Structures are given as structure tokens and as C-alpha cells.
């Protein structure tokens, strides 16, 4: 049988347990909402403005570099699995592959995009 069925069972049970715990908490706890209790928490003072702030564009840069490296490393996993049975050629291939991407990291670094300014 497909081994993923068992992984699926873990997903299902992993959903049931927290839902059950939160459900029990919801049943046992009091339910007396009022406007003050429902207002968002800002260290005890009245909330200022809406719950939204403009973000630094820097977050996007880090997500971008992460995306590129994530995809690259995923590519490298089949290579690493097979490496023990392959010769020098495969090693050089992998090193070239990594170096090309490290060049991207160096470019981003030199452009000053990795600074949290």
C-alpha cells in the first residue's frame, strides 16, 4: 500500500488533536465578550489607528534570496543521494552549480541589499 497513506493519517490525527484541545477549552471556558476585552492589545493603551503598518521592503529581499537558494538546494538532494556512486565529474558539476548561485549571493551582498538599513 502507498506509504503516503500513513503520512496522511498523521496529518489527520495532527488536525484532530489540536481541534479537540481547543474545542474542550471552548466548552469549559466562560464566554462573556465585551468591547474593551475584544479590542486589540497595545500594551494597555488605546489602539492607535488600524491594525496595519507599512513594511520594510527588506523583508522581500530576504524572501527572494531564500526562494532562490531553497530551489537550488532541493535540486542538490538527488545529486547528494547519488554522489557516493559517481566519479569526480559529478562532484565538479555540483560545485559549479553551487558556485553559480553563490555568485548571486555575492552580487546581492555587494549591492548592499543584505543590509538591514
Amino acid at each position: 500500500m502507498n506509504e503516503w497513506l500513513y503520512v496522511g493519517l498523521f496529518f489527520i490525527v495532527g488536525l484532530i488533536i489540536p481541534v479537540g484541545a481547543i474545542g474542550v477549552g471552548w466548552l469549559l471556558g466562560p464566554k462573556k465578550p465585551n468591547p474593551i476585552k475584544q479590542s486589540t492589545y497595545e500594551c494597555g493603551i488605546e489602539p492607535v489607528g488600524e491594525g496595519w503598518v507599512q513594511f520594510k521592503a527588506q523583508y522581500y529581499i530576504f524572501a527572494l534570496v531564500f526562494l532562490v537558494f531553497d530551489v537550488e538546494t532541493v535540486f542538490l538532494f538527488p545529486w547528494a543521494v547519488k554522489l557516493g556512486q559517481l566519479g569526480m565529474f559529478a562532484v565538479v558539476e555540483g560545485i559549479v552549480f553551487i558556485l553559480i548561485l553563490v555568485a548571486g549571493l555575492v552580487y546581492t551582498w555587494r549591492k548592499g541589499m543584505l543590509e538591514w538599513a
Partner: protein
Amino acid sequence: MTGEQVIFLIVGAVTLIAALMVVTVRDLVHAALWLVATLFGVAIIYTLLNAGFLAVVQVVVYIGAIAILFIFAVMLTRRQAADTGAALNKNWWAGALLAVLTFTGLFFMLQSWSGFQKQAAAIPSGFDAINQLGDALTSPAGFVLPFEVASVLLLAALVGAVYLAFNKK
């Protein structure tokens, strides 16, 4: 109907509904979250096709990276918390018509094809997809060039994106 077929039908229906939500909901963060649901459904479809490695990669790359990037981009390109205004443009009916036509066209084209109802062959014992993939990606007779070109493509994308989005003027 076998168990696999039941799972396929449920997952397929959920995937398609989630995809419909992606293209119709107004709030873009919700659209991105529905995209995550769609992508997860596609990952389950991969496991049904015995491509476990691709299913895991789908979750790592799409949900772990691309969906996060989408959410970041959505939050960077708005001035208030919620999206307002219409989700669809004035010519949405033309788009819908074209989409339906595409689907019917594909459906009838595929139906006339002889291999449409093909059944899968059994997987040979001892078959390890990751091992085979490693072979294919590293042997000179296989896909070495696409493997290296992919890294150049990713480099170009990184350089281009950094240059485009944050060229300080």
C-alpha cells in the same frame, strides 16, 4: 470504486474549488492562502502518482517559499489592511468564456486520443525515484545541461529581481 479513486475525487474537487477561490476572492491574502490549499492538493495528487519526492518538493518550494513571497509582496503593495474595489475587471465574462472554451477544447481533444483511458503499469520492485533522478540529473547522457542552466536561470532571476525592485533612484 477503489479507495484511491475516492481520495482522488475528494482531493481533486477540493483543489479545483480552492483554485476557483484563488481567482475570485477580493482579499489578496485570502487568495494567497487559497493558493496554498490548491498547491497542497496538487502535492497530494503527486503522492497518488507515486512521485513522493516531487510532493515534498512541491510543499518545500511552493508553500514554503513561493506562497510566502506572494504574501510578502501583497503586504508590500497595499496601503491599508483590506483590499477594496472589484476583484475582477470589466471584461471578466470574456475571460470566463475563453477559459470554458479552453477547457472544452482540451477535453474533446484529449477524448479523441487513444491513450486517454490508459492504466498505470505496476512499479517495478526496488525502484527508487530519487536515485533515478540523481542519475538523470548528473550523468552526461542525461540532463546535466538543464541542471546547470537551471542554476544560471535562478542566478539571472535573483540579479534581475534585486535590480528591478530596489534600484534606488
